[in-house]
């Protein structure tokens, strides 16, 4: 089905919210509105069935999940994608069942369960939201404040957990990279392109950004893997 592969859906979701969580949930609302547009249901029933497609939607969901700080971004994206597909089919089969809004509720729970135990991150998001508001006033100046807020907050919590054998400079570098990546538009290399023994570390520490599981043995590798993430940082003025 074209809608799922369309850039339009992603753009609408992007516009619909300011946090990655809100954007993920917005997908369900947008599809609901879209299905309810006059004449749409009928033409959908005559068109091709809802099928999974190799679409940008999955990648989009992974990016949002990473930005939201999900414990396992790949899993969350896959779960949201599956329930979205199932709901769209059910929605067309039986409009009265309100499949998409039930799916949205499920999505809310799935997102929440991945954020649990991530309280410090939530704090950071509030700070960054405030910082964004300040940016409206201070433009480039405030950009630095936001950056500091981002890289500062999670450190003490995570460092308390790390064993002594971890090199603090390396750990700081990892956190710095992780925070930096969240501010950019980033392309992650496909895990399949990496040697098999590096994939788990990559998914766990780089894509999901799970800093609490850093091991002395893999720390250097994590830093190297971070270097391979290709990011574009829009100038502060464009963020507005």
């Amino acid at each position: 089905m074209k809608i799922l592969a369309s850039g339009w859906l992603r753009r609408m979701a992007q516009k619909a919210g300011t946090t990655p969580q809100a954007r993920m949930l917005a997908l369900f609302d947008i599809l609901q509105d879209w299905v309810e547009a006059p004449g749409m249901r009928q033409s959908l029933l005559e068109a091709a069935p809802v099928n999974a497609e190799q679409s940008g939607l999955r990648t989009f969901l992974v990016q949002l999940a990473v930005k939201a700080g999900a414990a396992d971004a790949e899993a969350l994206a896959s779960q949201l994608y599956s329930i979205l597909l199932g709901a769209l089919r059910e929605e067309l089969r039986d409009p009265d069942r309100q499949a998409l809004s039930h799916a949205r509720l499920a999505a809310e729970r799935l997102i929440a369960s991945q954020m649990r135990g991530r309280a410090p991150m939530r704090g950071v998001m509030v700070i960054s939201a405030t910082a964004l508001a300040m940016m409206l006033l201070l433009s480039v100046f405030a950009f630095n404040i936001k950056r500091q807020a981002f890289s500062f907050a999670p450190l003490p919590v995570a460092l308390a957990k790390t064993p002594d054998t971890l090199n603090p400079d390396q750990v700081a570098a990892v956190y710095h990279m992780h925070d930096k990546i969240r501010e950019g538009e980033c392309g992650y290399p496909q895990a399949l392109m990496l040697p098999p023994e590096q994939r788990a570390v990559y998914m766990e520490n780089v894509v999901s950004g799970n800093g609490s599981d850093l091991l002395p043995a893999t720390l250097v590798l994590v830093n190297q893997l971070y270097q391979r993430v290709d990011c574009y940082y829009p100038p502060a003025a464009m963020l507005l």
Partner: protein
Amino acid sequence: MAKNMRERILVAASTLFHTRGINATGVDTIVAEAGIAKMTLYKHFRTKEDLVLEVVTRRSREFAEKLAAKLDKSTSGPVEKLQRLFDYVEEWLADPQCSGLPFLKASAEFPQPDSPVHRLSAELSQEFRDYITGLAREAGIRAPEALGLQLAMLIEGAVLSEQLSRGSGALEHARQAARILIESAQRK
């Protein structure tokens, strides 16, 4: 003999439908695969549609019976049954003879709501959802219909997603999602 012939047609049609798709399989192909005369086929099934309806019904019943039998046999509590749903869906899909959930495939091939095949597959997926809802009710969940619907959609979507890219882990992820949804429904 007549019963055997009917069976032979059903087996041949069932195999062809799932390897090539229902719409893509012509009556001539079924006749050739079953090794029978065309007249014999029409003696047992008035139209191709009748044959499709019967195949879809049988495959879906087979799925539902196997699922219920396995859940009844191996586990104790209703909550555990809900959580093990995905094990059996996965097991069913892993069998190369199965490829997909029969009622979902049929509804995808016949999207028009007034098509009898579509109506049948909608009924069968309703039965599947009711079965899950029943398990949720046994488990003492306060909004069993909502959970039943969510789990059914999750299964359907994960199966679709898995079909597109085998080994993407969609089913495994959906299983984790199901656990989260069940636990959160229990708390309410």
